[in-house]
């Protein structure tokens, strides 16, 4: 053994550090998941307990749902147009342009509408939700509610998560309509496909089950993204910086959750 070996032996093995880091990361993920599940349970319990504050609920419906209509319509129209343009150039190669309608319709209703609606709601509404709740937490407004014998989960979180659960499926429907319109616009007026072909082909291949699949996904995603925003905001600590960090993490977690859930929902419906 050389001297340097002797010296380095009491030092920490870099491998141990790596294992520790990975382990802490895994523990963190499970802690977050546990926190989310227990918050979801408590939200469900408080959602059915009186008093029902309809005013708060409708305010959130308005904010999450009505406020996102324009954004979702625009996103939907352009997604449909992009998809129609791309699939047209592919289908053109083997003369299957008539399939552009159903291709757009199936992709939009099953996948694009729920995923993009949820992402738009995350971006627009959940970021605001997380910042607002985080600010209320760090300025003791949440404690103030509690000392006034008003349950903050019931007062603040229940309406927000219910709004996500109910409004994202509705936005998904709007996205469906906008996406189909976008696809139609590219295929028929721009590329010269006949209206009859577009409509008939789409009608033949698009089943109500496809739309239901999208709506079910929308409900799940809406619930998840608002739950994550509420969880991060409600547990924010340490002033303006903490609120900023909470919002960043909420956005990242919510977007990731949408794609992960989307994969498993796909397995459930088509696996």
């Amino acid at each position, binding site marked *: 053994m050389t001297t340097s070996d002797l010296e380095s032996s009491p030092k920490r093995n870099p491998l141990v550090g790596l294992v520790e880091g990975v382990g802490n990361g895994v523990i963190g993920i499970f802690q977050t998941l546990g926190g989310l599940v227990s918050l979801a349970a408590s939200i469900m319990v408080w959602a059915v307990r009186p008093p029902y504050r309809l005013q708060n609920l409708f305010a959130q419906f308005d904010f999450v749902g009505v406020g996102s209509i324009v954004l979702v319509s625009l996103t939907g129209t352009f997604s449909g147009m992009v998809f129609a343009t791309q699939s047209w150039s592919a289908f053109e190669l083997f003369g299957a342009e008539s399939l552009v309608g159903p291709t757009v319709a199936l992709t939009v209703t099953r996948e694009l509408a729920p995923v993009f609606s949820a992402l738009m709601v995350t971006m627009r509404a959940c970021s605001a939700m997380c910042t607002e709740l985080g600010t209320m937490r760090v300025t003791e407004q949440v*404690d103030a509610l509690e000392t006034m014998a008003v349950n903050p989960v019931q007062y603040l979180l229940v309406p927000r998560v219910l709004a996500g659960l109910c409004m994202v499926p509705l936005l998904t429907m709007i996205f469906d309509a906008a996406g189909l319109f976008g696809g139609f616009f590219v295929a028929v007026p721009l590329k010269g496909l006949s209206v009859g072909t577009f409509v008939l082909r789409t009608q033949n291949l698009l089943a109500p089950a496809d739309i239901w699949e999208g709506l079910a996904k929308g409900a799940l995603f809406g619930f998840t993204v608002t739950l994550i925003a509420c969880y991060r905001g409600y547990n924010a600590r340490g002033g303006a910086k903490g609120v900023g960090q909470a919002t960043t993490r909420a956005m990242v977690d919510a977007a990731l959750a949408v794609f992960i859930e989307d994969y498993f929902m796909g397995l459930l419906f088509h696996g």
Partner: protein
Amino acid sequence: MSAAQKKPPMISVQDLWKSFGDNHVLTGIDLDVEEGSTCVILGGSGSGKTVLMKHMIGLLKPDRGKVIVDGEDIVPMDDRDLERVRRKFGMVFQGSALFDSMTVYENVSFALREHSTLSEEEIRARVREKLAIVGLQNVEERFPAELSGGMRKRVGLARAIVLDPKIVLYDEPTTGLDPITTDYVDDMIVTAKAELHVTQVVISHDIASSFKVADKVAFLFKGKIVAEGPPQELRHDPHPELQHFLQMWFGKGE
């Protein structure tokens, strides 16, 4: 005098212990707050003042000990009973903690809407009355961000007393305020006791303000109450840490 002494205290903390991990914050607190009196819990930062106050209103559960509020031990209570007990409290927060999305009127009337079935006119009358007690007029339609720090504190008190609580808690009411506003807030605490006959608990590290508003000062040091009594007596209490703390204000000469 003897009749008053026989009355049980409004708040009685008995042998209270609380640790967060290895951090032993409260190590055996005993404190009685008499009905209708103002008790200041004085201590430096990190002495456990806020933790002690959170136990009084049931926001934290102790590791050991009793917290008796108006004759009931709140430590073993479940959420539903705690909510009932919390209606006996009003709390004024350090940063006022007014709901910033609501006007002053909506802030003050909040608890009435949640917990009473009063009509709109009755609510309006009650809000006006409470705002008058704290010395504010014509601010109902303003938002908290449009008020000065001292006014926000007063709105915070109006909100805290709107359900006619028996106890009002103040969390560091004068921290971060300029001397004139501090004076204004001290007056508010003295007036609240005289007009509302409530029991008040103030946590503070502000010596001058504590001596002005208190009937009794309890000095909290390292998780224990090491000295307590009326302010005049406390100035001559021999406890070294207390004297060290008081010298910061009164100077070493006295």
